[in-house]
């Protein structure tokens, strides 16, 4: 029997119960939200379970929602079951003051740099990561550039006229 989104949802609800919220299927991909303490347990369950077998981490990144008080940073995981060709997305929200999330490097070796990139851009502190330092930006940078409050442009440039360039 093919693995459908219904079956996956039922298995997850059966194992974890009501803590998983915000179920949806935008454009066919099952999406849900989990509390941040459970993210490693959910990843491990999806990895180990014989029927679900989500053993490929496609993507790991974060989104900044400055208006959600208490849940400004969302870490989004995309997992893929290669055998049955099913994808799933789940999000964990964390407060920007204490952005600690458990690291997935124990399960997926590929999460190493993806988490470093997320730390570099958003400041999410992955607990249990072997080497959480900046990967893409300059090491001396002291702010997290992808957060919404920072501009994209180079600030020290003097020859670009802001009015003409529409900033």
């Amino acid at each position: 029997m093919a693995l459908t989104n219904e079956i996956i949802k039922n298995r997850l609800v059966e194992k974890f119960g009501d803590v998983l919220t915000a179920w949806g299927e935008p454009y066919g991909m099952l999406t849900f939200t989990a509390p941040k303490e459970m993210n490693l347990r959910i990843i491990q369950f999806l990895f180990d379970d014989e029927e679900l077998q989500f053993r490929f981490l496609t993507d790991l990144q974060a989104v900044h929602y400055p208006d959600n008080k208490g849940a400004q940073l969302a870490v989004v995981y995309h997992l893929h079951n290669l055998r049955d060709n099913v994808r799933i997305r789940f999000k964990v929200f964390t407060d920007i003051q204490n952005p600690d999330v458990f690291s997935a490097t124990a399960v997926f070796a590929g999460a190493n740099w993806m988490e470093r990139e997320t730390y570099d851009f958003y400041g999410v502190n992955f607990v249990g990561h072997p080497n959480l330092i900046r990967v893409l930006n300059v090491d001396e940078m002291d702010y997290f550039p992808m957060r919404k409050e920072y501009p994209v442009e180079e600030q020290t440039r003097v020859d670009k006229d802001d009015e003409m360039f529409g900033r």
Partner: protein
Amino acid sequence: MRPVQYNNTVKFAGIPEGYMGEGYMATNFEKVVSLARKNSIWPLPFATSCCGIEFMATAASHYDIARFGSERMSFSPRQCDLLMVMGTIAKKMGPIVKQVYLQMAEPRWVLAMGACACSGGIFDSYSVLQGIDQIIPVDVYIPGCPPRPEAVLDGVMKIQELVNAEGLRRRNSDQYRELMESYGIQ
């Protein structure tokens, strides 16, 4: 038998004016040195991104850059004449460009290829150096994103004109020293 083909579009570098006699020739030293320098420029391809691929196309057989004397791409800055900076230079890479420039021996020229090296290009962001002329003096700018190989060859020809017109004293002159100091280079 295959007919012989004479390549009569090749331009020979002319002998500079001077006094010729049996077994000797007297001419201006600068002219001879400039002629030799301009027709044997050894570039250092400092290729970081997409312009690097266009440079590879320029160096390949269709748009041969070797006919301008750049047969040997010197990858060591100590042995090259022309630093061709191709591609976006991020702020993380800036000190490295400066270091490579400092390792070059006089006379040295710099060519900024592509919009990113000239002025930051389409990447007006916090991590991109908005033009390498913020850190090193540039002689020729080649705009384009990426510039066509013909444009790159045009840039190399402009460098050749600069090399020809330079003379032997420029690198020791006061103006040059002032230029270097404005970039913080001794």
